[in-house]
């Protein structure tokens, strides 16, 4: 019987699932170290205040308390760094106020950590934290970007005028002005991209440990990128030698961006472990997650599109206010700029584009990348603008897209905003999606719904995004303070099995399966004989981790390069064993064969020979079969596609039901279709969540109103339909796999499709735009306000 197909393209079941479905996953909070004690952080319950004094006496005397630390104790350590420096229009660097590990004299957002109590038990730490007597002097706070830039607004940081972190631009202003001057149609849209709270189901946690005998530190933490955390924490915060610090990211229960960043708690438990010589565990309660995990989105944007008389887009002008929160989180500054404004061309041939971003400090939790990170904001703006343009020019919304698509023949396509798209076929994804969603049959469905008293609408988005931020040299020139390559080490064991050490990290994506499939495909080793190791700086080479849908396109490409080296070396060993010229050795399906003969050796035999080198070309080769490759991509990858959403609105309550959702994405080479579909489904759920349900609400002063699942609407099973998900792929032209990435497409393509459908459903009410989330109350208010007008007509 032929072995089952387990290579590229096979929906093999996940290797990691057995431990998860049997309760044997190993998450950070599941780890307990001998002698472990517990940290609890006392956080600010006010948006903005001066800390007049902190009296720790009563808390220090409470049962079980080992230590209490405040900023005064941390004077010798640095602030949390920002990883991307943006420059203003005038070339000066952005404002970069210190982000202290514990608040220094002033709290700037609800959740800002002020003190840490370390005690023998979790409850004792929490009990004592309540006894800290903190004297505050409240200061006025500000929550929204529009309020924060007003003259006289409360100042979040001294010395940051008008709360502006940076004022940045991209594109050709003069060309855009000229385009608008000659435009036949101009369309303008003001919109908000609502603030979201990532809410990975596993709350963040960290355990710091110190071995006094060796001087070694270990940090177990819920991160997407252990080496990045080690680098940032050692180099910028604690000034520790990297080689004495091990960072372990065990099983991590979802990230969605929120676990990329270096957080205060990681530094504190590591630092304090050495003070107390006890392992220290901290696990966030969900309410802490709400006020301390970096939030996402929160842009206020104005977009203007100029069209000629034929409906061709000739110019695009965009201004965004981006909320940074109270401090700069690790990659916050790159999100509205290089991850967002560089995609303003969308899937269209718009020749002149100008984008401006004003980044603003407010008294809110820091904002950073959340699934999609900048691309959802741009896709939402463009796809909403295009729908408005269609309506205002009278051109069908599908037709206007077709008229403006970058044609397949135009790739590689240089946009006016820096990026060069390598491949894509926007007509193909559109056609397939329209067919799958039965776009043509919609009018009948709308009529049927109307007969039942319901409003039905359909909407689409034909979006593009960019994954696998790269190349490092370009990113560096643009202000990135980190490399963006990835690394893989492929190690054959003597008996022929393979261990893969990857710098990427899996926190739900299924790398232990997908990456193993690459080995099966390229080296012919059965899947069961391949193990993927990730998430431990003591085991893996220095890698950059997982975010921005980069793991396959960048990390997988590094594996391919490493495996190329394995094959090259294997050929030399095979040539020796088979007494042939290395140029005559062919490698296929796990076998080295002398071309044109039946003389061959399996890769397992070659591995054995490499480790038991009794008959071996020692003069030419080192023993062993293990190769490492670092891969720095030449470009981003550009997934895109078409999402179509169909909704029904209950006229009486304003509830929007998603009745049909179709996603047809171009993600390049698909390794495991089952996993890709799962990624898209999850992303679409988050996108629908953003469009209809989720909103991180602050009051005007900066008090977090939606601070728990009681008020923050997480999508539940009965909020969502089953999805129709498919891919229609063109290959990435510059990486060896052809893969583009699939982790974020769902969250990027879906929100504009949903809102376009909602606006379509409300077309008889004269509604032009509905801000996200389109909650029942909001929809009802819109219908309620429009009702008298309709009655009058």
């Amino acid at each position, binding site marked *: 019987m032929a072995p089952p197909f387990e290579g590229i393209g096979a929906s093999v079941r996940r290797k990691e699932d057995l431990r998860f479905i049997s*309760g044997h996953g190993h998450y950070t909070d599941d780890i307990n170290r001998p002698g472990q004690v517990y940290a609890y952080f006392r956080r600010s319950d006010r948006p903005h205040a001066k800390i007049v004094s902190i009296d720790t006496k009563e808390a220090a005397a409470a049962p079980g308390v080992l230590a209490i630390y405040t900023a005064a104790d941390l004077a010798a350590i640095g602030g949390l760094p920002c990883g991307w420096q943006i420059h203003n229009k005038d070339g000066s660097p952005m404002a970069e106020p210190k982000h202290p590990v514990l608040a220094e004299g002033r709290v700037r957002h609800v959740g800002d950590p002020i003190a840490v109590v370390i005690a023998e038990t979790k409850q004792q730490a929490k009990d004592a934290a309540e006894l800290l007597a903190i004297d505050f002097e409240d200061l006025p706070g500000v929550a929204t970007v529009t309020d924060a830039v007003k003259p006289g607004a409360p100042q979040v940081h001294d010395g940051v005028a008008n709360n502006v972190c940076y004022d940045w631009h991209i594109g050709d202003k003069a060309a855009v002005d000229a385009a608008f001057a000659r435009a036949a149609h101009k369309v303008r849209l003001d919109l908000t991209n609502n603030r979201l709270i990532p809410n990975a189901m596993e709350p963040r946690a960290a355990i710091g440990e110190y071995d006094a005998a060796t001087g070694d530190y270990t940090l177990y933490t819920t991160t997407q990128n252990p080496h990045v955390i080690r680098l940032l924490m050692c180099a910028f915060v604690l000034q520790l030698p990297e080689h004495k610090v091990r960072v372990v990211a065990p099983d991590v*229960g979802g990230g969605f961006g929120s676990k990329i960043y270096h957080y205060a708690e990681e530094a504190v438990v590591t630092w304090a472990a050495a003070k107390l010589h006890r392992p220290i565990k901290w696990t966030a309660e*969900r309410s802490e997650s709400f006020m301390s995990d970096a939030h996402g989105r929160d842009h206020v944007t104005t977009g203007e599109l100029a069209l000629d008389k034929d409906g061709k887009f000739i110019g695009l002008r965009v201004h965004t206010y981006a909320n940074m929160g109270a401090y700069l989180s690790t990659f916050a500054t790159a999100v509205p700029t290089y991850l967002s404004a560089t995609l303003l061309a969308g899937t269209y041939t718009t020749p002149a584009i100008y984008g401006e971003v004003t980044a603003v400090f407010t008294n809110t939790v820091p904002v950073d990348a959340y699934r999609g990170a900048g691309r959802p904001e741009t896709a939402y703006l463009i796809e909403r603008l295009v729908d408005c343009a269609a309506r205002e020019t009278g051109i069908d919304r599908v037709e206007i897209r077709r008229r403006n698509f970058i044609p397949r023949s135009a790739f590689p396509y240089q946009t006016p905003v820096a990026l060069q798209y390598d491949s894509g076929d926007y007509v193909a994804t559109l056609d397939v999606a329209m067919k799958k969603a039965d776009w043509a049959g919609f009018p009948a469905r709308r009529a049927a719904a109307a007969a039942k008293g319901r409003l039905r609408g359909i909407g689409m988005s034909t979006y593009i995004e960019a994954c696998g931020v790269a190349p490092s040299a370009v990113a560096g020139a643009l202000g990135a303070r980190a490399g963006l390559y990835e690394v893989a080490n492929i190690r054959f064991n003597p008996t022929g099995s393979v261990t893969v050490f990857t710098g990427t990290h899996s926190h739900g994506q299924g790398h232990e399966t997908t990456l193993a499939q690459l080995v099966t495909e390229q080296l012919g080793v059965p899947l069961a004989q391949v193990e993927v190791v990730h998430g431990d700086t003591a085991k893996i080479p220095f890698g950059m981790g997982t975010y921005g849908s980069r793991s396959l396109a960048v990390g997988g490409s590094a594996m391919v390069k490493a495996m190329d080296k394995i094959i090259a070396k294997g050929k030399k060993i095979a040539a020796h064993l088979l007494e042939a010229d290395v140029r005559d050795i062919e490698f296929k399906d796990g076998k080295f064969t002398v071309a044109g003969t039946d003389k061959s050796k399996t890769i397992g035999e070659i591995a054995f020979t490499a480790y038991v080198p009794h008959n071996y070309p020692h003069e030419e080769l080192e023993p062993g079969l293990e190769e490492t490759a670092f891969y720095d991509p030449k470009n981003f990858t550009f997934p895109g596609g078409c999402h179509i959403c169909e909704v029904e609105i209950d006229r009486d309550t304003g509830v929007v039901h998603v009745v049909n959702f179709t996603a047809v994405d171009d993600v390049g080479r698909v390794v495991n279709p089952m*996993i890709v579909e*799962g990624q898209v489904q999850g992303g679409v759920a988050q996108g629908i969540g953003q469009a209809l349900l989720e909103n991180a609400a602050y009051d005007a002063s900066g008090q977090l109103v939606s601070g728990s699942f009681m008020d923050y609407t997480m999508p539940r*099973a009965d909020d*969502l339909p089953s999805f129709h998900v498919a891919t229609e792929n063109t290959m990435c032209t510059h990486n060896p796999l052809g893969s583009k990435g699939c982790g974020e497409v769902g969250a990027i393509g879906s929100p504009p499709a949903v809102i376009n459908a909602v606006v379509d459903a409300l077309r008889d009410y004269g509604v032009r735009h509905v801000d996200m989330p389109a909650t029942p109350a909001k929809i009802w208010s819109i219908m309620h306000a429009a009702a008298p007008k309709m009655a009058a007509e």
Partner: protein
Amino acid sequence: MPQVSLTVNGKPASAEVEARTLLVELLREKLGLTGTHVGCDTSQCGACVVHVDGMAVKSCTMLAVQADGAKVTTIEGLAAADGTLHPMQEMFREHHALQCGFCTPGMVMTAIDLVATHPDGLTEEQIRHGLEGNLCRCTGYHNIVKAIAAAWPLMHGKGMPAAAE
């Protein structure tokens, strides 16, 4: 401190706890059963669902002392002694109903209860409604719903469902 004695996954267990100790804390911290997770502090996410005397309950919303004398089954206790998985576990794997795995234990325990209490069949709508108390951030629920539908005939002795797509 109160003493609690109970049966967990078929084995007797007992521990000294504070009165304020939650059942989930007893399971995770005293009994080392870390398969049951805590995902929120407002009794909404369902990551902590276990079976107490045959009922799927949130172990974060029950005091350990309330479970004195009870029979508790956790995710670790579902597979047979020889390692054979429960059909629900099997279907979760078959239908890719988990990604990060964090909500999975609670989701599986709720799903088993949902199927067991619907001997006459389960519609997609009933499944979705039945998962109201369990949050998942990864899957969009699509494959969880599929897995539960596929487990129904297995749990009710109707044989294997049709092969997965």
